[in-house]
């Protein structure tokens, strides 16, 4: 399988179809994987593929303006590219997608131990990228057993709590937030050159680590990803204090599916959620 990736990468660089190939290489701890940016044929052997290739590489696409890029892509990562294409942040002809039919990645927190599939992989149904130029399949025997699990289980559990309990829960979680904005930096869809969190005139919310500042930041981050988040789970993985950010993203994903039957990242031709409307959108909350 890795040979197929290497052969394709070599071919792309040789024929000058792309200027750079983004893939994964071994990290210095010899277990994990880090992004690899390969522009010379000689470096191709550095490329790897295993369950530790957790990063969503589409975050790096915007770092090479004007260049043609070949990119190794898991199913979930390709969805974020779909959203970027939908929003005209990328040109389809500038990227060559080496799609990987992924069989699930490991839970990075349990590095070195038993292979444990990441939470987000358990609810993932089609691991095939929605868009790709070439598709590489993982061998049959390595396919992880996918659990038939309700992807919104933890969301539903929280929803049943009372308002006070919910506030208490999120207040505890957010109280750890140090406003490092790692969730924003890692997100492939947070691409504003100037984030509202850094605006000072007007200062929309407090930059201090406070209940209301942390709430505002997290609500705002989630709202900006409404109908866009494809649940690659990078924010939660990057969060140094372990706030369950995916539970917020999934809540919006669920609502958007229920209210507008909209799903993010499946169709590049689809209009973004908040740039479109339907005459029959629900309005039972409006007086």
């Amino acid at each position, binding site marked *: 399988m890795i040979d197929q990736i290497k052969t394709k990468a070599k071919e792309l660089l040789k024929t000058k179809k792309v200027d750079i190939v983004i893939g994964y290489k071994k990290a210095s701890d010899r277990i994990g994987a880090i992004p690899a940016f390969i522009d010379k044929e000689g470096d191709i052997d550095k490329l790897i593929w295993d369950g530790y290739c957790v990063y969503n590489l589409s975050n790096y696409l915007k770092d090479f303006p004007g260049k043609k890029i070949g990119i190794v892509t898991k199913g979930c990562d390709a969805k974020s590219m779909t959203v970027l294409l939908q929003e005209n942040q990328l040109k389809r002809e500038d990227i060559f997608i080496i799609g990987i039919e992924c069989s699930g990645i490991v839970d990075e927190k349990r590095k070195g131990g038993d292979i444990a599939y990441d939470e987000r992989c358990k609810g993932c149904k089609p691991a095939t990228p929605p868009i790709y130029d070439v598709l590489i399949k993982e061998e049959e025997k390595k396919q992880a057993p996918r659990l038939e699990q309700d992807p919104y289980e933890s969301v539903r559990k929280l929803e049943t709590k009372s308002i006070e309990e919910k506030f208490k829960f999120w207040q505890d979680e957010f109280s750890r937030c140090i406003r490092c904005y790692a969730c924003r930096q890692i997100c492939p869809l947070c691409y504003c050159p100037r984030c509202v969190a850094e605006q000072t005139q007007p200062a929309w919310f407090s930059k201090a680590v406070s209940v209301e500042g942390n709430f505002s930041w997290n609500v705002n981050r989630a709202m900006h990803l409404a109908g866009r988040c494809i649940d690659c789970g990078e924010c939660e993985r990057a969060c140094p204090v372990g706030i369950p950010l995916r539970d917020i993203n999934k*809540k919006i994903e669920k609502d958007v599916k229920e209210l507008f039957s909209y799903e993010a990242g499946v169709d590049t031709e689809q209009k973004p959620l908040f740039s479109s409307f339907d005459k029959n959108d629900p309005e039972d909350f409006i007086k």
Partner: protein
Amino acid sequence: MSEWEPKIVGFLCNWCSYAGADLAGTSRLEYPPNIRIIRLPCSGRVNPLFILKCLSNGADGVLISGCHIGDCHYSEGNFYARRRFAVLKKLLEYLGIDPRRFQMSWVSASEGDKWARLVTELVEEIKQAGPNKDFVRKND
């Protein structure tokens, strides 16, 4: 404080709800003075940040009011608003912020009586919800 009175911020569209509130005034309808009105061109102009900012700066409730669906001066502004705030409303509730604190309504320019009734009810609801203490910014 002997009796606490809620502070409510209202974001009203210029073409319908603002005129509706104006009509309530010129018709000499009485309604509680707890609402502070901010006039906007359209309910589609309202950014979710406005609501967060209001709540964190001490508002006990926020109301967005615009034209009825189909009546928007800009044809479709309220359609976009409706989508956006359906999501925000559910999100705020999920995060434990009392859903009574954030409300939305359609009030046309001829519905002065609806406006007066709406605000009366809203103030009553927010009074039940009590002062917004959790979310408010503390100067320490």
